[in-house]
């Protein structure tokens, strides 16, 4: 078995732009769920409107990249307000239902034939992201990296950009969560009525939280679509939301650094399990039927799922969580 390539691939997966995108989106989800207790099952919807906001404003309206970027984020704000206004006065479950439905509605709308002149139907829109690469200090024809871990210039640019943004949003979250503002959010997570009785407008704070986390989701979508140089509707399907949830829970809900490390861990585990299976088949320890064709992906996710189930049993608080704190919930 080629251990060095297995680990090289795992590290590449851990620092990949997808991992950075998941980290940014998970920071948003962490603000929603980890700090405010909002059940958002449609984070991918925020990513989609961010990505389409940028793509459409460039292809249809010739917007410069910086303006397109702002429009993408504003689209996420609008979505957060649309979802929040009717549901945030209700119990937490309603937001969950509405967000998961909304994310599918968004995907199917952008995908629809009727709008294909505008959003490109199921093919999406591509070839609009060049403007974002003009700032790149990397030469697209060269490979950058350490030792055997090397990526091409454009990819390196997105990785640097993505992780810088991931760290920036994490620091913003840290600044907010140590403040009295963050304290109100955490208090809302524990008991909304108590917060209202103490003179805070819980609805307003929940809305702020939904918008902020949604904007981070939109940012993640923009990074993903710029990295792929295309915005394609099926890249924003519901499983993405749940992978982001997985990354967040892996890291530990309600912790500052858990989205980043949870996301890295999630992608490394996926890559490791994949390459290990392949390697074991190659040396004849496993029957080749396991990885043949589409089944390979399925078995990989079975293993990852099993691993997560074990994590929930033995370390429910994730990598960074505090088990004692977590157990308080049940009282």
């Amino acid at each position, binding site marked *: 078995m080629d251990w060095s390539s297995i680990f090289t691939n795992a590290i590449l997966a851990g620092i990949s732009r997808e991992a950075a995108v998941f980290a940014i989106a998970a920071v948003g989800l962490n603000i929603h769920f980890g700090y405010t207790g909002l059940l958002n099952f449609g984070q991918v919807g925020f990513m989609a409107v961010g990505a389409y906001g940028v793509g459409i404003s460039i292809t249809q309206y010739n917007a410069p990249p910086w303006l397109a970027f702002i429009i993408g984020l504003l689209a996420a704000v609008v979505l957060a307000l649309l979802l929040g206004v009717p549901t945030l006065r209700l119990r937490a479950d309603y937001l969950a239902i509405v967000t998961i439905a909304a994310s599918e509605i968004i995907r199917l709308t952008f995908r629809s034939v009727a709008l294909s002149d505008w959003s490109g139907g199921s093919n999406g829109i591509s070839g609009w992201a060049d403007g974002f690469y003009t700032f790149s200090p990397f030469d697209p024809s060269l490979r950058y990296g350490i030792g055997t871990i090397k990526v091409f210039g454009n990819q390196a640019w997105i990785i640097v950009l993505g992780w810088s943004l991931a760290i920036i949003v994490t620091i*913003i979250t840290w*600044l*907010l969560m*140590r*403040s*009295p*503002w*963050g*304290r*109100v959010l*955490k*208090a809302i*997570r*524990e*008991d909304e*009525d*108590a*917060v*209202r*009785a*103490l*003179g*805070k*407008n*819980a609805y307003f704070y929940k809305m*702020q939280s939904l918008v902020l986390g949604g904007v981070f989701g939109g940012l993640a979508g923009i990074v993903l679509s710029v990295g792929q140089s295309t915005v394609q509707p099926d890249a924003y399907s519901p499983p993405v939301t749940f992978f982001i949830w997985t990354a967040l829970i892996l890291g530990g809900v309600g912790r500052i650094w858990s989205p980043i490390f949870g996301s890295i861990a999630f992608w490394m585990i996926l890559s490791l399990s994949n390459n290990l299976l392949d390697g074991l088949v190659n040396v004849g320890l496993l029957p080749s039927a396991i990885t043949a064709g589409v089944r390979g992906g399925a078995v990989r996710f079975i293993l990852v799922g099993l691993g997560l189930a074990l994590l929930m049993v033995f370390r429910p608080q994730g990598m960074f969580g505090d088990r*004692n*704190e977590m157990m*308080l*919930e049940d*009282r």
Partner: protein
Amino acid sequence: MSESTMDTIAPRQDVAEVDPQPGSTKPDPILTVDTMVRRFGGLVAVDVDHLEVQRNWITALIGPNGAGKTTFFNLLTGFDKPSSGVVEFNGDKLPEKVSPEKLANDGMVRTFQLTKSLTRLSVIENMRLGAQGQLGERFLPALFKPAWSDQEDEITTRADELLERFNMTHMREEFAGTLSGGQRKLLEMARSLMTHPTLVMLDEPMAGVNPALTQTLLEHVKDLRDQGMTVIFVEHDMDVVHEIADWVVVMAEGRIIAEGTPKAISKNKAVVDAYLGSHHGDDLEFDAEGNPIYEKHRATAEEAEIAAKVDAELDAEERAKREAARRGQAAQQDAGNPDDDGATA
């Protein structure tokens, strides 16, 4: 608690000056409720014609289960909207739709029957949350610690003083979720004081608290009055009511049926009827078909008042006569029962 403040607080001799009638006027009401009705479908849960709550008194709100006390509490504190009604707080008429947060900003704070400690926040963070007008609770200033750190220090100092007063300093850094039930009650009360309230509304502050801690809590409630606050509390334990309440308001079936001092209220016929049923001690009456008549007569507030007066005037002879009649009837019933017959004979 400085002595000077103690001096300025008049003892509650003015209790005697207030007419012990449901809906009576008070010399200086902090809260006035008029024709407040709350319907849940066909059920009228609260129907209060008029209530005034005297400033700087401890007013107890009592009543049997289902009397509408908690609903009334929720209506007053903005957690529920009345079907109709007018509330005046501190002389200002409140808008029809008023939110709990607005009321808390104005100085009306409440606690809950099921204690709402913020489990995964430390005790001191629970306390800090109570402070009003925090700059750091606004989104943009929150990002810059220098903008709010001074205010935070002041708040922390005040929170620590309160924790000291409530003997909870040793729990300062613990998660509120690790506290015992009684400590949570203490924390909730202390936290509510962080809002600088003028009117404190306590929903069953003593429920589920061990007797030793009850005494402590009672002292704290009395302290609130001594510091110039007004307290309204819902309670089931009559001993508690007797010990700390200046004035008692009794609710039954959504209405206020009596008001008065704790002493007077326990002798009030309407109150006793509300708790035990209006026919306790009376013989059952039967209609033509031989079915018992239960709801022949329900005392209204006025009738109850009259009844109370009449009761007081009932002389011992009258009572003895009734007693004798009852005994005679009981004997008759016994005689009609063959099983008992053998035993008593």
